[in-house]
């Protein structure tokens, strides 16, 4: 019952006219940037963070919610019309969606993606609103050893268990952990790995890493290949409305996708790839017209797209209640919260209740705005896809570097950005996943301090992790999840592509 009261209060904050405008701006720029090819939600949020720097925390977080959902929606538009999924989770959407667009059914494909996303996000946000307080009640009882166990699970699942190659995933994670070491140690005040550079004492900014790896790395890889593979968007012909048959073939996949996506997203298991692939396979089995799969089956867009959005709302559960990001997007969002001096976790619900519930209510509002704005504006989004690649990437680089120097005006920061860009380029070239590096950077220092606080409380006795059944079980799960893919090679059949 409390949830409803809090949610009601949240809506009271969110429907303030200024906040509504923030939400609308967030949705529009989020979609506009998310539509651009090669830009997934993680990069969208990272690029647009500076826009929200100077607003008050409430307003910027509400704008943030709009950017997040807008970026998600924009990604699916690109996947359908351009066949260049901006993130791993829309790879499946591109399979059928692009085929539909090629057959002149781009409109219905976009519509089923938009309405499916709406339905999924709506149900999943309700799930978030009711699940989060329950989880918070459990989470306040967590000791540092439990957090350490949880982070181990997140590390392993994000990097090793579900990637194409556990070795490459773990290497990416190790890179993030290594960057997380840089800077002044919180407990003893010693500098780690700063090499005498004063700018490194504060550590590496998550947004600099994310923008470097995603934006600069992407620009480098596209430039290095573009001579060989030019892409053109498919024009949206005919009606954008769905026929009666489209509706009857779509609504069940939407719901099934939602119920697959939300629980998996809410687990600290990392990523929306698994629910989208699961949903795709289920829809192919259940479809009345399985022969259409591969040639533009609407179920193959409706289900995965709903699963994608539901799991995105699901990742907010561990993010808000435990401070545990399980995807690159969530890691960047956590960095955003920290920029406003808000630390997600169980205490957030006690200390900033109005903020959390304002955010949850804004997610509902952003979701409605997306539906209202996106379908009528589809012509505009298509026009954005037609920006010539040279100008597009030149503009992205200008904006990316602007965000970096606005946050931290120093040449060292720009050099870091460039360095991360080169690393991102090499990681893409040799097929290393990028999300584990971002998650490693943000979770590494947290895991370090959880570990050390546990050991301080136990006076240095490592048995503390096994004494508490909860942390013992979680560490056990993490170990199994780490070892399993090496034993059962078949488990790694879930290909994790780039965010």
């Amino acid at each position, binding site marked *: 019952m409390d949830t409803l009261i809090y949610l009601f209060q949240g809506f009271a904050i969110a429907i303030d006219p200024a906040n509504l405008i923030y939400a609308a701006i967030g949705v529009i720029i989020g979609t506009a940037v998310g539509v651009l090819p090669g830009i997934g939600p993680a990069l969208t949020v990272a690029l647009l963070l500076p826009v929200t*720097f*100077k607003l008050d925390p409430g307003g910027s977080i509400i704008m943030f919610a709009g950017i997040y959902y807008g970026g998600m929606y924009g990604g699916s538009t690109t996947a359908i019309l351009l066949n260049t999924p901006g993130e791993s989770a829309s790879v499946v959407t591109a399979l059928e969606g692009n085929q539909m667009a090629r057959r002149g059914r781009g409109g219905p494909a976009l519509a089923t993606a938009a309405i499916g996303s709406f339905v999924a996000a709506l149900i999943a946000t309700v799930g978030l609103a009711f699940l989060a307080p329950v989880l918070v009640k459990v989470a306040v009882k967590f000791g540092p050893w439990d957090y350490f166990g949880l982070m181990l699970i997140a590390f392993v699942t994000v990097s090793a268990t579900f990637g194409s190659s556990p070795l490459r995933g773990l*290497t990416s994670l190790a890179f993030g952990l290594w960057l997380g070491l840089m800077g002044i140690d919180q407990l003893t005040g010693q500098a780690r790995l700063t090499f005498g550079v004063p700018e490194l004492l504060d550590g590496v900014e998550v947004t600099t890493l994310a923008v470097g790896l995603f934006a600069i790395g992407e620009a480098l890889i596209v*430039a290095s290949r573009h001579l060989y593979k030019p892409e053109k968007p498919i024009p949206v012909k005919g009606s954008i409305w769905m026929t009666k048959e489209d509706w009857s073939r779509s609504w069940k996949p939407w719901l099934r996708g939602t119920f697959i996506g939300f629980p998996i997203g809410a687990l600290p298991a990392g990523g929306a790839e698994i629910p989208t692939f699961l949903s795709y396979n289920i829809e192919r089995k259940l479809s009345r017209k399985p022969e259409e799969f591969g040639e533009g089956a609407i179920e193959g867009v409706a289900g995965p797209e709903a699963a994608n959005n539901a799991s995105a709302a699901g990742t907010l559960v561990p993010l808000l209640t435990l401070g545990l990001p399980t995807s690159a997007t969530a890691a960047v969002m956590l960095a955003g919260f920290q920029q406003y001096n808000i630390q997600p976790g169980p205490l957030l619900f006690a200390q900033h209740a109005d903020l959390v519930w304002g955010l949850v209510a804004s997610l509902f509002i952003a979701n409605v705005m997306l539906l209202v704005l996106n379908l009528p504006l589809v012509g505009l989004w298509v026009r954005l896809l037609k920006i010539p690649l040279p*100008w597009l990437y030149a503009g992205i680089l*200008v904006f990316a570097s602007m965000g970096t120097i606005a946050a931290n005006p120093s040449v060292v920061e720009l050099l870091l950005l460039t360095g991360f860009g080169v690393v991102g380029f090499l990681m893409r070239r040799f097929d290393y996943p990028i999300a584990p590096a971002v998650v490693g950077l943000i979770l590494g220092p947290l895991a370090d301090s959880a570990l*050390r606080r546990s*050991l301080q409380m136990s006076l*240095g006795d490592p048995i503390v992790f096994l004494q508490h059944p909860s942390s013992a079980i979680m560490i056990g799960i993490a170990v199994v999840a780490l070892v399993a893919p090496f034993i059962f090679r078949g488990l790694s059949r879930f290909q994790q592509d780039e965010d």
Partner: protein
Amino acid sequence: MTSKSAFIHNRPAAVIAIVLFAIAAVTYWDASRMVVRATYGMSATAASYFVAILFAILAAGHLISAFKPNDVENEEVDWKAVGWIGLALSGLIVSIWAGGGFILGSTLLFAFTARAFGRKAFVTDICLGAILGIIIFLLFNKLLTLALPMGPLERLL
């Protein structure tokens, strides 16, 4: 060299293994120089040693995979385009470093990046980049009061 490539199938993996070993060594060396110890529990060095060991293990893993056939296809790379983007980013960095300001830097960044993607109309791109830079500068510096680096051009605005 030729005898080496006869049994190293995956040369990138071998190079990455060496880089990972180097990072492990640097991290180990950095941790070994830290002096403050915790009274009980673990000191700040423990995480460094852990990451160093992790890197060493991953390096060993890469070394092993270097002797297996490569499972990632090697795509061709247009190094000239990569070089242009490198030039674009250095243009920005030098401009900021030398006090040239944000607008000059982003103009160079824009024009050289467009060149990397095969555009030949350099003068047009310079103008476009300058306009974009000015718009971003006005929007973020004046409207959102973010401190972007100032140069001679910015002081005029």
